[in-house]
């Protein structure tokens, strides 16, 4: 699967751009704020329907314009589809071969941006996001369950914060939301547990290729409730969550927020018996994140039957030279299309013989770069 060209209209700092793409590596080199990340962002938007840099669609439009357009041609084996997305301030419209569609599920990307390097360091919400994004791509039912779960959670929390309601009224009204939180929560817990097991299946190979550590890397799923039960299936988790809700009911009323459920889950990575978050060196953190990304690609490849498109936004500059080398040799094992943005061509450590197209980006102007 690859994109043959990219066409941007009124998108960010590009009034009009037409780029012929390489089926393998496309490397965009330029200083910050010149527009190289905008290219990566445009490809990401085509597959996800939102940006990874902003939640305000208006940021994507050129000043004074009310819409932007991203167009491409998607090749899958010998099938060709014209794909476009129209970005407006309040919504977006997808088109496949000129016909309006809800989304483009066949176009799958894996993004690797510097922020991902925080994955193993910061709070649990970053790790849940990583899992949510991956599982949403692997299982369509996960995305639906997560959306419904979030909506039920917001309503449940709003009720809990209502200070004028009597205890009895509150309990009666909470019940309808709680039942859904338990049902959807159990579904998410089971899929997350399954997803982490899938990641662990690929971790030894992925980590071994990047790090010379002897000790194995393992990812552990940490739901507050139902860690063991998650392996036994949804019904068992439902029972477990229901009991937890019951046990913590008074606590919940007092603290006025939902205390039980997958919105409080976490993940932990261990190298041998060392927990990465507390004991790993800077270099080890990077290796762990690179390995996790590698697993994400592998899993998507398994499910989709072809490699996803890789988006690497300015990651190379974050790596030391030896990791940089290991990282790019890993990349070359990935047979799909790759978009790379980098500040300088030296950051991208590729063998001379590698087939790639190099572009230089300066004030929204893109030229071929001879390397």
């Amino acid at each position, binding site marked *: 699967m690859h994109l043959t060209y990219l066409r941007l209209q009124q998108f960010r700092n590009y009034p009009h751009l037409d780029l012929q793409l390489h089926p393998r590596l496309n490397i965009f080199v330029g200083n910050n704020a010149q527009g190289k990340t905008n290219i990566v962002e445009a490809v990401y938007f085509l597959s996800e329907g939102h940006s990874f840099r902003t939640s305000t669609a208006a940021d994507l439009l050129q000043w004074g314009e009310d819409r932007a357009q991203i167009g491409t041609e998607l090749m899958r084996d010998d099938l060709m589809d014209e794909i476009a997305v129209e970005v407006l301030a309040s919504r977006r419209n997808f088109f496949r071969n000129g016909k309006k569609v809800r989304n483009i599920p066949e176009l799958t990307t894996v993004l690797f941006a510097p922020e991902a390097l925080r994955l193993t360091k910061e709070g649990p919400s970053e790790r849940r996001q990583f899992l949510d994004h991956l599982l949403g791509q692997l299982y*369509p039912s996960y995305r639906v369950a997560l959306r419904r779960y979030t909506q039920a959670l917001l309503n449940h929390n709003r009720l809990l914060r209502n200070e004028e309601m009597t205890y009895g009224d509150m309990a009666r*009204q909470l019940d309808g939301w709680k039942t859904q939180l338990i049902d959807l929560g159990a579904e998410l817990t089971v899929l997350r547990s399954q997803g982490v097991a899938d990641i662990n299946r690929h971790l030894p190979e992925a980590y071994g290729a990047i790090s010379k550590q002897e000790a194995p890397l393992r990812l552990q799923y940490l739901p507050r409730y139902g860690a063991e039960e998650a392996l036994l299936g949804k019904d068992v988790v439902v029972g477990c969550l229901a009991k937890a809700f019951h046990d913590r009911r008074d606590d919940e009323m007092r603290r006025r927020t939902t205390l039980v459920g997958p919105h409080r889950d976490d993940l932990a990575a261990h190298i041998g018996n060392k927990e990465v978050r507390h004991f790993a060196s800077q270099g080890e953190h990077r290796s762990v994140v690179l390995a996790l990304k590698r697993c994400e690609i592998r899993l998507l490849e398994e499910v989709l039957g072809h490699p996803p498109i890789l988006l690497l936004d300015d990651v190379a500059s974050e790596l030391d030279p030896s990791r940089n080398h290991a990282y790019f040799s890993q990349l070359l094992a990935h047979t799909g299309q790759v978009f790379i943005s980098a500040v300088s061509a030296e950051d991208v450590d590729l063998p001379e013989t590698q087939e790639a197209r190099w572009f230089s980006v300066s004030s929204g102007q893109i030229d071929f770069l001879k390397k």
Partner: protein
Amino acid sequence: MPTNPIDRLTHAFSKLPGIGEKSAARLAFHVFKGDPKIAEELAQALLAIKCTTALCAHCFGITADDVCTICSDDRRNRQTICVVEEPKDMAAIEKTRAFQGIYHVLHGVLSPLDGVGPSDLRIAELVNRLEASPAVEIILATNPTVEGEATSHYIADILRPRGMRITRLASGIPMGAFLEYTDQQTLALAINRRREL
């Protein structure tokens, strides 16, 4: 100085949902040029909808009289009450002609995020109704959104002590549809809620 009649009618039409300035002007000119009977019929129908419609005293559906045609139809089965969110849902079920019972319209769903609680819906009215004439079955036909589910759950909890049968609409793959064209959400739900054969 008063606005000219064409502009006035255009302005009025443009307040309706889905009608922009251009379509409003086109409608206004159409009425202006057309048969006077069209204007008369339109004027009467418009006034009638506000002056002569009300909410049915029993089911809170829309009616021209005190009690709607469904509630006053002797052939309907009063033992089965179908609870819906809006009058338009009642109309949708009626079109199927698959339901012989009577209705109860809630006029909304529970939604704490939007500040909608049980007292904003016609739930107390449903309880009063059942008090006056008990039913055998209540069908909860709110939409399969999280709000619709929470509302059905709440009503079921309130009615359960009365010992009547309480059912919820089934959801799944549309009849006559092919699996490959069914949206992922519906298909995933249908797999999760599969039944024994």
